[in-house]
């Protein structure tokens, strides 16, 4: 196109619907570009929204200026709090020994934020420290007055502190206490009309706590509400987390087929999103679910897929779990080779320090030995478990269950049902450490 564009063509370019020819001409023609600039200016100068943005850009918006000032205050406060809290965070025992909570200088929103971040970061690895830190965060958040510069944001801050306390308590296996904290968080978030995402996050946390304390119906109810909010917000990462907990809850409740349906849908999502780690984790779950239903072929495929991905991603411990699943399948195909494969799995768990898994593999091995007629070896194994896991620092309820197994072995009264009973309990107590072991009624 050599002639200049007419106004109609130029208007189409401004609207973003220009032809390729016109666009090509524009790149080469300074006069037409200037005309397009003029039309663009005309278009946007006539839009009040442009003037509103210009007003904001030049500092004329009170609300924006307030928020900018808040951002500055937050940064100042956080910086100060980080400096002041450093010795406490290096040694959280200092919180108990000092007058930390009574000191006025610590009663700032910055202190709460820094403590919440620290609690969150330590929750998985050092839950006791996380709980001490979150307890202090919650106490300070509660002491901040309602006329705080954050306005209704103060309730969001309090909600966050109580949520972190709940997370820390959850990580310590104190589910009832965690649920109390989450209730407090919900109450604080409930004071802010728009805090629907925050409430959904707390409900997700409550769902996990209900699920692990075997209150399955309550878990599924709150998880359904969270799931809907995450989906409505297109917060897919949280939606997936929520669905994983829904699947686990159904599986624990014994609704294996429904759990499989949820996990299969998630696997499809992970595949389409190219999320290899998620796909591997779900495949592993599917492996166990199919195994439980006696669907050997589907279980084999799922465990193989999980194993291949975990190996490719360098996730050694998780790959070891998939190999354990495959070893369980091997038992169904060839008892002798299955026993050997489980023995190797047990060594792997010991090598990686996977104590909880090692307990379950030991029991799978004992069961397989009994099936293979290796009774003496099975008795030897069951008698040794208490000593071995006590040395590994295992909790009391699980030890009591293993003690029950040892007694049965000493009395030469081991049966598959005794092993199965203990295994079921161990699996439950791993998720819910507050459970107490009671031997089966004879």
């Amino acid at each position: 196109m050599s002639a200049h564009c007419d106004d109609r063509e130029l208007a189409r370019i401004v609207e973003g619907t220009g032809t390729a020819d016109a666009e090509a001409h524009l790149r080469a023609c300074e006069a037409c570009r200037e005309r397009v600039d003029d039309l663009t200016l005309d278009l946007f100068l006539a839009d009040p929204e442009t003037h509103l943005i210009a007003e904001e850009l030049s500092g004329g918006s009170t609300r924006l200026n307030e928020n900018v000032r808040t951002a500055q205050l937050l940064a100042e406060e956080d910086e100060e709090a980080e400096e002041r809290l450093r010795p406490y965070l290096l040694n959280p025992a200092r919180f108990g020994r000092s007058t930390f909570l009574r000191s006025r200088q610590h009663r700032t929103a910055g202190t709460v934020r820094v403590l919440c971040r620290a609690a969150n970061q330590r929750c998985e690895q050092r839950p006791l420290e996380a709980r001490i830190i979150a307890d202090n965060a919650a106490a300070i958040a509660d002491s901040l007055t309602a006329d705080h510069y954050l306005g209704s944001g103060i309730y969001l801050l309090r909600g966050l502190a109580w949520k972190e306390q709940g997370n820390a308590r959850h990580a310590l296996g104190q589910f009832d206490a965690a649920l109390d904290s989450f209730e407090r968080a919900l109450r604080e978030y409930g004071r802010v009309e728009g805090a629907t995402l925050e409430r959904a996050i707390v409900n997700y946390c409550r769902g996990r706590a209900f699920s692990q304390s075997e209150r399955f119906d309550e878990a599924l109810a709150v998880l359904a509400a969270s799931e809907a909010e995450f989906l409505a917000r297109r917060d897919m990462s949280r939606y997936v987390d929520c669905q994983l907990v829904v699947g686990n809850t159904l599986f624990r409740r014994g609704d294996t087929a429904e759990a499989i349906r949820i996990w299969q849908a998630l696997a499809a999502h992970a595949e389409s999103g190219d999320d290899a780690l998620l796909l591997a984790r779900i495949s592993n779950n599917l492996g166990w679910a199919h195994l439980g239903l006696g669907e050997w072929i589907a279980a084999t495929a799922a465990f193989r897929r999980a194993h291949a991905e975990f190996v490719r991603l360098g996730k050694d411990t998780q790959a070891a779990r998939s190999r354990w699943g495959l070893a369980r399948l091997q038992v169904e195909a060839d008892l002798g080779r299955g026993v050997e494969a489980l023995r190797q799995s047990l060594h792997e768990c010991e090598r990686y320090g996977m104590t909880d898994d090692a307990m379950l593999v030991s029991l799978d091995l004992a069961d397989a030995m009994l099936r293979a007629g290796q009774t003496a070896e099975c008795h030897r194994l069951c008698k040794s478990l208490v000593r071995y896991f006590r040395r590994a620092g295992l909790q009391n309820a699980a030890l009591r269950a293993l003690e029950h197994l040892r007694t049965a072995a000493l009395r030469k009264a081991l049966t598959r049902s005794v092993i199965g009973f203990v295994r079921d309990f161990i699996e439950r107590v791993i998720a819910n450490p507050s459970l107490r072991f009671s031997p089966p009624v004879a």
Partner: protein
Amino acid sequence: MSERTEDRDADLKAGPGLLTSSAERAGAAFRETYFQHAPLMRHVAMRRFGVPPSAAEDIVHDIFASYLANPSVVRGDLRTYLLGAIWNASRQYRRKHDREEPLDSAPEPVAPDVSDRLATQLTVARVLAQLRPECREALTRVHAENEKGTDVAASMRRSCDALYQLLSNCRRQARALFQKLARGATA
């Protein structure tokens, strides 16, 4: 260009990296984030949900205030979070004021032409922000508020000729600035 305009220009160019204190950096970073997302959020509230401009503005500021109070609520992409929040808040607004439930329950992806349009609008707004106050006032009242030239001239204590002269100069300046900013953006 007046001294004041140059100051403003310098302020606009100062990214977070040039500022010294953490508070200054945080303020600048917040402004940057705000201008990156607020126009699209207002667009969604007003165009998709029919929220009136002043209410849309309040909702957007409330969302940013909540985000400041609890940034840890954002997991991953901030834009997705903000769009989800404006979608949710606009829906609540509609429910409260019209008792009418909009058809779509989840945020729709923003069409590329909308994003392009808003980016250009932000550039024009940046141009306006760099002009002298009387330029901005004249351009706003004549172009956006469609006031009569005679009324604008009277309230600005100018003759009509002087007003049109002013508008012409301002347009020329605006075009030069726009070309500079738009070309700079594409370069």
